[in-house]
C-alpha cells in the first residue's frame, strides 16, 4: 500500500515527522511499520512535548529505589520491604465509554504494579467531571464509578481513597486518574530491561483481539464531533483474567525464571517489545503466527496495535520454559513463545514465513521526536479589591451552602461502590485525610492520598503546582505518617498551544519547587495532553499521589474528635485569603483572583511540628485545613467524631468570614485534651509556631456565639445529601 499524506495524518503523524521516519530508517515504511511509528511516536508513549520539562522534577531521596522510567516507582520502607506505586490517566477512553474506560484504567495501573513483582495492596483514584447540570455528567459519573468498582472489586484489591470533583471545564473531557500501590520484598523487584541474546520472548495472559487498536494515538488527540466512531479504540477489561494473571505472575516470580517483564499497556505488543529490547540495548525478533489471537485472520497490523488487556511480555531464562508453562496452564492462561532476543538492535517481525517489518529500535525510542514547544508565561490578571458586604452572607447559611455543594459534600455514595476492606489490612478508608493500609503481617502502615487543585492551578499555575504538592504532604502528615515520595498525573489541554504549554511548564515549576523543598520526590507518573474538545481545554490539573510511612501503627492519627471538653487549636497563621476559596466560588460567586500563596518554610515547619506532636501521643485528632477553611475543617472533624464544638474566635483584625472561610495554606486543626494542653502549647511556643485556640468540644452541637447553633445530626445530613438527591435516592 502506498503511504499517502492522508494515511499519515490518520496515524496522528505530522508530514515533517514522516520525513524524519524516512531519514531514520532509510526507506519508506510499509503500512505496518507506519502503524508502529504511530504507536511509539504519539504524545502518550513518547512524551515528546513534556520530556524536556519533566527533567526538572526531583526524583531522588534516600528512600527512592526506582524513579521514573520503569513500570512504576519504588521506595524503601525498611525491614526489607518496598512500596511500588504509580498513577496513570485513562481520560479519553473513559469519556467515550465510561465503564470500560475506567475499568481498564484500574486494570492497567494494577499491571504496572505487579509487573514489578509487587502484590497490589490498594488503589485510589482522582476523577473529575463537568458541571453537574451538564447532560452527560450523571451518566459519566455513574459509569466511571461502577467501572472502577467493577474492576477493583472483582480482582480483590481494596479501593481505599480518592477524590471526586466537578467543574465545567471538564464538560467534554472528564479525567479518570487511577493510582495503585503494591508491596514487594526489596530483593525481589522485577524490571523491564531485557538481558542476554537468544533468550525466549514469552507472551502470557489473554488472547489478542481487535479492541483498543490505536488507543494511545486516540489519547494523543483532541476530540471532535465523531466520538461514536472512536468506540473501537477503547479496550474492554476482564478483571477475572487479570486476577489469574496476577496470581500466575507472582507464582512465577518466586524463583529466578524471569529475566525481565513488562505489561502490554498503551500501544500493546509494540511498545512492550520495543521498550524491553531498547532498554537492554538488544534486538528482538517476533513470529506473529505465534500470537494467541481471539479472532481468525487478524493481520500483523492489528496484532501489533491492539490494546487488548490482561497481557504480559516476559523474557524468560531459556531453561525455565517448562516450569513457567505449567504455572500458566494451571491458571488457564495463554502461554506462547513468540520470539527471541537478538543482537541486531532491530525490531524484526515475521508472519507466514516472511519478514513483514524491520526497524532499528533506536528510531522508535531514543531517536523519536522531542519538542521544545513554545510556551507563554502566565500573567496574573489585576484584580480590584473586592468590596463585599459580608453581612449579606450569614455564616451558617454559607457553611451549609459549602457543605452541600457537590465538591464538598460527603461522598459515601461513591465509596460504598468500592470494596474498601478486602485483603483485611485497610486501617483508614476513604473520608479521612489519607488512607492507611497495613503492611501485611506487621504493625506498620502505608499512608496514601490523591490530591488536585484545579481552581488554584488555573488561577496561577506555579502557586497551584506548589500548593497541590503541599496539600498532599499535609494529608500524609495529618495521619501520623512520614511522607516519602509522590507519583504525578499531569492532565492538560493541547500542548501545541502556547498558553497550555505555559500552564504545563509553570505547574511543573511549582511542583518541582515544593517537592525539592519538602524532600518529597517524584518517582513515577504520566502526562495526559490533548484533554481538549473543540478548542476548549480543561483547567490545568496536575494530580498528585503521595505515599508516606507509619512506622508504628499505634501512633496513627485520625481526624474525628474524640472527647468532650477538649480544645481545638489551629496550627499556622490565618490571614483570611478568600480568592479561589469555596466561600467565594460557592457562596458569593467570585471566580477570579489569585490562589493562596504557599510559604514552603512555614509548610515544612508547621508540618514537622505536628508530626512531632503526634509522635509524642499528646493529640486526640488532626485534620488539615484545606478547601472551605477552618469552619469546614472543624465541621468535618465534628461530623466524623459525632462530637460538637463551641467556637470562640480569637481577637484579631480579620473579618469573621475571612477568618472562618479563608484558605491560607500550611494549617492544621488539632484536638488536644485538658491534660495535654499545656504540653502542646509549650512545644508550639518553644518552636515558634503560630497557633490559636479556636474552640472547645461539647456534646452534639456546633455553636458560635451570637451567630449560630446547629445540631451535628443536621449538619451531617446536609453534608451527605447531595449525591442522594442527584441520583434521586432516599
Amino acid at each position: 500500500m502506498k503511504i499517502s499524506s492522508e494515511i499519515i495524518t490518520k496515524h496522528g503523524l505530522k508530514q515533517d515527522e514522516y520525513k524524519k521516519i524516512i531519514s531514520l530508517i532509510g526507506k519508506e515504511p510499509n503500512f505496518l511499520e507506519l502503524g508502529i511509528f504511530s504507536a511509539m511516536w504519539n504524545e502518550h508513549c513518547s512524551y515528546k512535548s513534556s520530556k524536556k520539562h519533566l527533567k526538572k522534577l526531583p526524583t531522588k531521596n534516600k528512600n527512592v529505589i526506582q524513579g521514573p522510567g520503569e513500570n512504576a516507582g519504588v521506595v524503601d520502607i525498611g525491614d526489607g520491604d518496598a512500596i511500588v506505586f504509580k498513577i496513570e490517566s485513562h481520560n479519553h477512553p473513559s469519556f467515550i465509554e465510561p465503564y470500560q474506560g475506567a475499568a481498564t484504567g484500574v486494570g492497567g495501573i494494577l499491571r504496572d504494579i505487579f509487573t514489578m513483582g509487587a502484590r497490589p495492596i490498594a488503589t485510589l483514584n482522582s476523577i473529575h467531571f463537568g458541571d453537574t447540570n451538564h447532560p452527560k455528567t450523571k451518566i459519566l459519573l455513574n459509569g466511571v464509578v461502577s467501572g472502577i468498582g467493577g474492576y477493583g472489586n472483582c480482582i480483590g484489591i481494596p479501593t481505599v481513597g480518592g477524590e471526586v470533583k466537578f467543574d465545567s471545564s471538564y464538560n467534554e473531557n472528564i479525567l479518570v486518574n487511577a493510582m495503585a500501590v503494591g508491596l514487594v520484598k526489596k530483593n525481589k523487584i522485577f524490571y523491564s530491561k531485557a538481558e542476554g541474546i537468544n533468550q525466549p520472548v514469552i507472551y502470557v495472559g489473554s488472547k489478542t483481539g481487535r479492541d483498543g487498536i490505536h488507543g494511545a494515538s486516540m489519547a494523543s488527540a483532541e476530540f471532535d464531533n465523531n466520538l461514536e466512531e472512536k468506540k473501537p479504540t477503547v479496550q474492554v477489561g476482564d478483571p477475572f483474567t487479570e486476577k489469574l494473571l496476577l496470581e500466575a505472575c507472582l507464582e512465577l516470580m518466586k524463583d529466578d525464571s524471569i529475566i525481565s517483564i513488562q505489561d502490554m499497556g498503551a500501544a500493546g505488543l509494540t511498545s512492550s517489545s520495543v521498550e524491553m529490547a531498547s532498554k537492554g540495548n538488544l534486538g528482538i525478533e517476533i513470529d506473529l503466527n505465534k500470537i494467541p489471537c481471539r479472532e481468525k485472520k487478524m493481520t500483523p497490523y492489528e496484532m501489533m496495535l491492539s490494546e487488548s488487556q490482561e497481557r504480559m511480555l516476559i523474557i524468560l531464562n531459556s531453561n525455565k520454559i517448562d516450569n513457567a508453562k505449567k504455572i500458566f496452564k494451571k491458571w488457564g492462561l495463554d502461554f506462547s513463545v513468540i520470539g527471541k532476543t537478538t543482537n541486531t538492535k532491530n525490531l524484526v517481525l515475521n508472519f507466514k514465513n516472511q519478514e513483514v517489518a524491520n526497524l532499528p529500535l533506536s528510531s522508535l525510542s531514543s531517536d523519536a521526536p522531542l519538542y521544545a514547544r513554545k510556551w507563554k508565561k502566565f500573567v496574573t490578571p489585576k484584580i480590584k479589591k473586592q468590596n463585599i458586604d459580608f453581612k449579606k452572607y450569614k455564616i451558617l447559611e454559607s457553611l451549609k451552602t459549602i457543605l452541600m455543594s457537590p465538591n464538598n459534600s460527603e461522598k459515601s455514595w461513591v465509596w460504598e461502590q468500592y470494596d474498601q476492606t478486602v485483603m483485611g489490612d485497610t486501617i483508614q478508608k476513604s473520608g479521612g485525610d489519607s488512607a492507611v493500609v497495613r503492611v501485611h503481617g506487621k504493625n506498620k502502615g502505608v499512608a496514601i492520598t490523591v490530591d488536585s487543585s484545579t481552581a488554584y492551578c488555573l488561577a496561577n499555575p506555579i502557586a497551584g503546582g506548589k500548593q497541590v504538592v503541599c496539600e498532599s504532604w499535609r494529608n500524609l502528615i495529618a495521619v501520623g505518617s512520614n511522607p516519602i515520595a509522590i507519583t504525578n498525573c499531569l492532565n492538560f489541554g493541547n500542548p501545541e498551544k502556547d498558553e497550555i504549554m505555559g500552564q504545563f511548564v509553570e505547574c511543573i515549576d511549582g511542583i518541582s519547587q515544593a517537592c525539592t523543598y519538602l524532600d518529597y520526590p517524584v518517582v513515577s507518573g504520566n502526562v495526559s495532553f490533548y484533554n481538549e474538545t473543540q478548542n476548549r481545554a480543561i483547567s490545568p490539573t496536575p494530580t498528585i499521589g503521595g505515599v508516606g510511612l507509619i512506622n508504628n501503627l499505634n501512633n496513627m492519627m485520625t481526624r474525628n474528635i474524640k472527647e468532650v471538653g477538649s480544645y481545638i487549636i489551629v496550627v499556622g497563621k490565618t490571614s483570611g485569603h478568600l480568592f479561589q476559596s469555596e466561600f467565594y466560588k460557592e457562596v458569593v460567586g467570585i471566580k477570579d483572583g489569585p490562589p493562596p500563596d504557599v510559604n514552603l518554610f512555614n509548610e515544612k515547619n508547621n508540618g514537622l511540628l505536628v508530626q512531632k506532636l503526634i509522635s509524642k501521643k499528646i493529640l486526640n485528632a488532626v485534620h488539615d485545613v484545606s478547601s472551605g477553611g477552618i469552619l469546614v475543617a472543624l465541621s468535618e472533624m465534628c461530623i466524623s467524631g459525632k462530637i460538637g464544638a463551641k467556637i470562640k474566635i480569637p481577637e484579631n483584625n480579620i473579618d469573621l468570614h475571612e477568618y472562618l472561610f479563608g484558605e491560607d495554606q500550611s494549617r492544621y486543626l488539632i484536638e488536644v485534651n485538658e491534660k495535654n494542653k499545656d504540653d502542646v502549647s509549650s512545644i508550639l511556643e518553644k518552636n515558634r509556631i503560630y497557633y490559636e485556640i479556636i474552640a472547645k468540644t461539647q456534646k452534639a452541637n456546633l455553636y458560635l456565639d451570637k451567630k449560630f447553633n446547629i445540631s451535628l445530626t443536621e449538619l451531617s445530613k446536609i453534608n451527605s445529601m447531595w449525591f442522594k438527591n442527584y441520583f434521586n435516592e432516599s
Partner: protein
Amino acid sequence: MKSSVIVFPGSNCDRDVVVALKKFKIENQMVWHDNSTLPKSDLVILPGGFSYGDYLRAGCIASKSPIIEDIIKHAKKGGLILGICNGFQILIETGLLPGVLLRNKKLRFLSKNVYLKVTNLENKFCINYKNNNIIKLPIAHNEGNYFANDKILKNLEDNNLIAFKYCSNKGDINTENNPNGSSNNIAGILNDTKNILGMMPHPERLIDPILSGTDGSFMFEGLLKSY
C-alpha cells in the same frame, strides 16, 4: 480442628480467611478447586471473591467444580461448611442452601459496615454470640439480595434457620436497615441440620481492634469452642 479453604479461580478472600483461621489456631489447608478429593477436614470454608468472574451467574460455574462433589458428601456426613459472600452464592448454586441471591435492590455494589442481629444462637458457628447478639460486620457484594418463595421463608423462620438479619445499631429489623433488599432482612441462613452456614457479611474482615472491630472473632472462637 482442621479446616480446608477452597480456592476457585477468582476467589479473593481466601487469604483473609486463612489469616483469621491462623489467628485462632485452626489448622488449615488450601484446596484448589480442581482437586477431586477433599482432605480430611472438620470445617470447609468457601471464601468470598468473584469465582469465574461471576460470569453466567455469581457462584454458578464454581458450583460445577470437581471438588464440589466431595463437599456435598462432607455436608451429608454432618461436616461443617461456611460459605462467605461468594461462598454463600456457591452454596446456593449447589443446592446445599435454599433460595437465590439477586442483585442488590439499588443495582449497585455495596461495601459498608452493617449491623446484624444473630437470630440463631444454637448452632456451632454462632454459639459465641450469646452475650452480644447485635454485631457489626462489613458487607461487600453486588448480589446479596436474598430471595425465596413463601414456603421456603416460612420454613426458615419456623425452624429458626436464619442465622443473621440486617438491623439497626439497636437491633431493630426494618426496611430502613436492610442494605440490599433481602427478604425478611436475611443476611445468613443455615441448612436444616445446621451444619452449613451461608452468609453475605465477612466475619474474617473484623478480627482486629485496629480494623475498627472484632465481632468477626467470635465466630472463629465459637467454632473452636464447639469442636
